[in-house]
């Protein structure tokens, strides 16, 4: 009778899943990994953000909830790099449901969004804007749906999410930061704030896969400003160094600081 020598249990660090058979290795998921998505994804135009999102970009077949401190803060700065590729097909449109301010078509055209591909649906009242969003999602709109739904309740968002499962277009819901108090049925939830200089600070509040506490710093210079920015403004100076102008002077005083600020382009 031989003596059984107990084998020590393998330490977790020594675990290499690629030693497993291929089909098992594929099924193994580690808690630190970013999950995948069912539908196709669209690159966001920001490498850091792509890396943090499941599937490497904005998801389709599901909602993306973007939380902002105030409406009309940085929606286009966040989305503008991704949207022009969506509009390559001439029949696709960008649907704006109840935007907080009037969009400016020429400014958007400078970002690469053709005016004939923009549709602004001007609705008042939370019930109507929810209904419009749902109709658009249900009709499997091609392009993208951008909806500002500050007052939507979680069960209403859940209803949209169920509809969005069949929609092959990204659907963005813009909501206030206070929506963080409620759980969200949307599979992706970001909160976006203005960062230092030209930057945007993005926190991934919810995603498929590992929880992320990192703050992503995106260098989001509006696309139409790129060509006119002088080199000294590539890094935005810290606020506070403001030239003082004299009240009694007529017109515009020609102080040294003011002259330095006014660089024509």
């Amino acid at each position, binding site marked *: 009778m031989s003596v059984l020598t107990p084998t020590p249990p393998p330490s977790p660090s020594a675990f290499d899943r690629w030693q497993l058979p291929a089909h098992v290795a594929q099924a193994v998921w580690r808690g630190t990994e970013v999950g995948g998505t069912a539908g196709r994804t669209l690159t966001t135009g920001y490498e850091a953000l792509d890396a943090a999102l499941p599937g490497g970009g904005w998801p389709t077949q599901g909602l993306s909830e973007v939380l902002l401190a105030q409406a009309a803060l940085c929606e286009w700065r966040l989305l503008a790099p991704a949207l022009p590729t969506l509009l390559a097909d001439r029949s696709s449109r960008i649907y704006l449901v109840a935007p907080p301010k009037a969009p400016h*078509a020429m400014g958007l055209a400078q*970002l690469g969004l053709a005016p*004939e591909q923009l549709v602004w649906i001007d609705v008042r009242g939370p019930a109507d804007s929810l209904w419009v969003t749902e*109709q658009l999602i249900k009709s499997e709109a091609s392009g993208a749906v951008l909806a500002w739904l500050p007052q939507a309740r979680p069960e209403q968002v859940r209803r949209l999410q169920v509809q969005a499962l069949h929609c092959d277009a990204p659907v963005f819901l813009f909501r206030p930061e206070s929506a963080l108090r409620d759980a969200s049925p949307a599979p992706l939830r970001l909160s976006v704030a203005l960062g230092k200089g030209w930057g945007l600070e993005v926190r991934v509040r919810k995603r498929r896969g590992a929880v992320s506490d990192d703050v992503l710093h995106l260098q989001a210079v509006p696309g139409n400003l790129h060509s006119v920015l002088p080199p000294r403004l590539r890094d935005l100076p810290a606020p506070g160094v*403001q030239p003082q102008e004299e009240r009694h002077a007529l017109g515009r005083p020609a102080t040294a600081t003011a002259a330095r600020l006014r660089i024509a382009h």
Partner: protein
Amino acid sequence: MHWAALLPRPLPGCASPIEPQALAVWALQFTPRVAGVEEAVLLEVEASLRLFGGSEALHALIETGASELGAQVAWAPTGLAALAFARQGASDGFAGPLTALLDAVPIEHLSAVARHQATLARVGCRTLGQARALPRGGMARRFDAALLTALDQAYGLRPETYEWISVPESFEARLELLGRADTAPEMLLGARLLLLQMAGWLRARQLGATAFTLRWQHDAMRSRAAGPGGELTIRTAEATQNLEHFARLLGEHLDKTELLAPAGELMLIATQVEPLVEASHSLIPDPAHSGASTRLALERIQARLGEACIRRPQLSADHRLEWMQQWSAAEPRRSPKPPPLHVLPLPTWILDTPLRLIERAHRPIYQGTLQLLLGPDRVEGGWWDRTQIDGAELTCNVQRDYWLAHSEHAGLLWIFQARLAGDETAWFLHGHYG
């Protein structure tokens, strides 16, 4: 041969069963071989089976439509047999051999035989099978020739001849409601029946409707002021045959309609039709199709929330921010050459009217002191442009120095400094680079 018999049956909510003529017009979408026989409609669909995806799919399609219109459907290899089955209440004449099924049908379900029911009953004939078993020579001598002809046609021994109904040039259908409709949405149930008939007619003629009119007649017990009735014309942007779309549009419009008196009778007219080219079906899913359903969704949104709620931009060559673009409900004209982009980087959000900013130490303030980044860019002119506001004529002349400004909390802004009366100047916020 593959025959269907549609037998009108009374529907709950309607005063009388559907007219065979209206039923025939609806049925013409499936086959050109439609005939009115006595109180029923016979259609021969053998040639259409493949087009509609096989007999099962076609059966389901016809049965759903017919049950909605209020008609009993029966199927059989011959037309008279289908009619006899429909009268009997049986539906499928393909369940077994035709002879066996038809032999068990009572004689009163075949009209030519039923005419001699009294005589036949006296010799103990109750079913078609028993009548068929009688000696032919004696039958021919004793009864008229029509009886033997009908029996032979029903059993498929002799060809059936009918005069086919042709598709009418225009569509008009009416419906009497059983109860009075007191509110407009109540009419929708009856109107849906009419829409179903119209969709059938459109499909038969390969047309799409761009406008249809629903008329209603007020009940006889109305007040004098209410008038004889009312009407509602509904237009769609694109010619379509889609019943659900018609019904939803009509529903949205009826929700907003107020009836002056209860309505008793409805009438539907296809006012404007256009030839419709059906897209050929493809194995590969077509992305263009989804655009079409979104257009229908936008139309529904417009029907509920008003024409003006959907806005599309039109750029114009102007250097003033407000007049550079117009948003209107019309589909934008796609110009052959897109207008050149403005030389200045423009904001993506614009304020309807510029917001005057307060100043502290001669610096504009908007959610914190503004840091002026780039500027000034002088935009001046517009003396040629006049608008009427409250009766007074104003010139849209502007003289502004635009600056790109940065606010710690509100992001990038497009602000301008303008000269007020006297030597005063003021700062205004005009747009956000949001």
